[in-house]
């Protein structure tokens, strides 16, 4: 799914088309769920914020400008709502939220495959886990991940490949080696 598609759906949403909102939801609710989960480490909060994000999308739809930055806009809404939530819970006064990286146990999974998949994340270093979460589960490009984490794109690329190799090894039952980073 591209930002261009989001631009089109947002146009339809502005004209009151809830089917477009549902399409957007179907495409983006999982990335947003994982994005919030990464920030809070709390599946309940992730569910609530994900839900509230789409309500906010509806409310703010007329303010949306089709500039090909749809995904970034959605993540910004989710991030701001998360910050509001955390602030209400007095967990932060700062705009810079430190990610609370979830473990497999933190996820509300409804399938064995899901549990197995998320357990793979536990072999990763926090930095790698961050990158994998953003890249694979939040569906960001490596460039967007680099921007989100303020890390050079080359570094993100390298760490991401390393992380996927580790996860593959884990999946295949092979040995994982300590990351030298």
């Amino acid at each position, binding site marked *: 799914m591209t930002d261009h598609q989001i631009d089109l759906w947002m146009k339809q949403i502005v004209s009151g088309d809830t089917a477009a909102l549902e399409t957007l939801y179907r495409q983006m609710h999982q990335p947003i769920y994982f994005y919030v989960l990464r920030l809070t480490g709390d599946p309940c909060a992730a569910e609530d914020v994900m839900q509230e994000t789409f309500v906010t999308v509806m409310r*703010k739809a007329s303010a949306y400008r089709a500039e090909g930055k749809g995904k970034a806009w959605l993540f910004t809404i989710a991030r701001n709502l998360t910050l*509001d939530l955390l602030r209400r819970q007095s967990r932060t006064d700062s705009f810079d939220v430190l990610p609370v990286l979830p473990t497999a146990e933190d996820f509300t999974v409804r399938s064995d495959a899901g549990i197995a998949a998320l357990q793979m994340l536990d072999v990763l270093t926090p930095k790698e886990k961050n990158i994998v979460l953003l890249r694979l589960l939040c569906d960001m490009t490596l460039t967007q991940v*680099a921007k989100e984490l303020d890390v*050079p794109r080359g570094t993100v690329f390298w760490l991401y490949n390393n992380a*996927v190799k580790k996860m593959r090894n884990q999946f295949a039952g092979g040995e994982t080696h300590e990351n030298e980073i």
Partner: protein
Amino acid sequence: MKTKFEKAFRESAYAGVPDKWDAIQEKVRSVVPEETAKKVVRFSARSLATVAASVTIILVAVSVAVGVGTRKNTPPKAEITVTDENGVSYTLTDASGFDPVTVPETTVISYKDDEGVVHTTVATITRNAQGQREEASVVVTFKDAEGNMQTTVVAIPAEPSTTARNGETSTTKLSSADSVPEAADASAAASTRAETLREVDWSNRTMPEKFPAVQFDPTGIPGGLAKEYDFALRGNEYISRPATLLYTNYTLYNTNPRTDKEETATADIYVFQNFSRKLAVGVKFPGEEKIHPYVNVHYTAQTLGDFLNDADVKNTVHFGNIHLFKDGTFPVNAQNKADVFKYLLSDISIKNTNATDRPSGAKVTLSVDLAELGKRGKVMEVYESGYVHTNLLGYGCTFNVGKENVAAFLKNSYNVTFDDLAKVGTTLQTTLPDCGGDPPVTTVSQPYFVEGTTVTTTQAQTIPE
């Protein structure tokens, strides 16, 4: 492009995400989309001809464009003419959609109000891995012709590419205001002369553009990796400083952003004479004669001595202006520069406080460059409390050089004291762009400048009583 494994992983993980569509549907039934207050404040070239107040913003050190009124209530529109240091004016376009951006570096902006009074503020900008500005915004507050307080967001656009190449795509437009006629055709006329920012196709990029970052540990086993060594190209420049070959045929990685495909290349790694290898290494690509400086994005000096020695600062730094706020902006001459090193940067044993926050209190700001490493538009802030804070070499460094030394520097170089100057603080309740949240996100620490009832800051639009 994701592999089979990556897709399977994602699908499995997604299977656990609860479906809340029913609940959302229930909620959105009662939601009425908000009318865009932003429509009221969005600028168009046509509106420029009809608005009343006039502000000239003179950007020091960077080109600048665009602005939008953002008062909390329906704001009267203000005419803004943005002029860069070369006297070139730009049209204004809507900047209200900027995300709150990180603020790794600052630059100083000064502008005149209707009465000709010069105000100064600090803008924050971000740079991409090649050292090009990406985007930034700054809020300036001023009195309009009727004496009402106005707040305006001024955005600093990305730096346009200088050369057009095949396969480029347009992402952002800038346009010159001197091309804008007064009548209704303004918009069209401006766009015909628009400069365009371009994303260059991979095949048309130079090698440094393809590989703007390198992970390399120049202090340990060559080719080894360590998290504290991420070198990024600054400014896509060459460097003529003598250099010694450290490692040959080192592999660099990057991703083609269009295809998401991994790309690799080999290059030779050099260290520079009189520059610490912890701070910068040189990269020479096959077939090229010159060496590109890549600067460690994680570098931070431990002591004032490190700061001075690691980049040969005494011989490489260039001071532009000193901004004494209410009193205006003055060039830094050779004597002033000598005073900086005499009073502020003399005790090499002073440790970097490594504070995550900037010092607070009154300050004056010097603009500094270290062109050899692509460090331009940096600042050195000198605080009344005795601290010197600078982002010259990347991460901010803060040194406590003593109140007496700071006072002596100001007295000897400019014959002023802090009591003579407008006060500048460092924190403020701010309102960020409208991206949701109830209540909106409102807190972020940014530098700001107070003069009377006017607050000027990087993201704020709060006017204290």
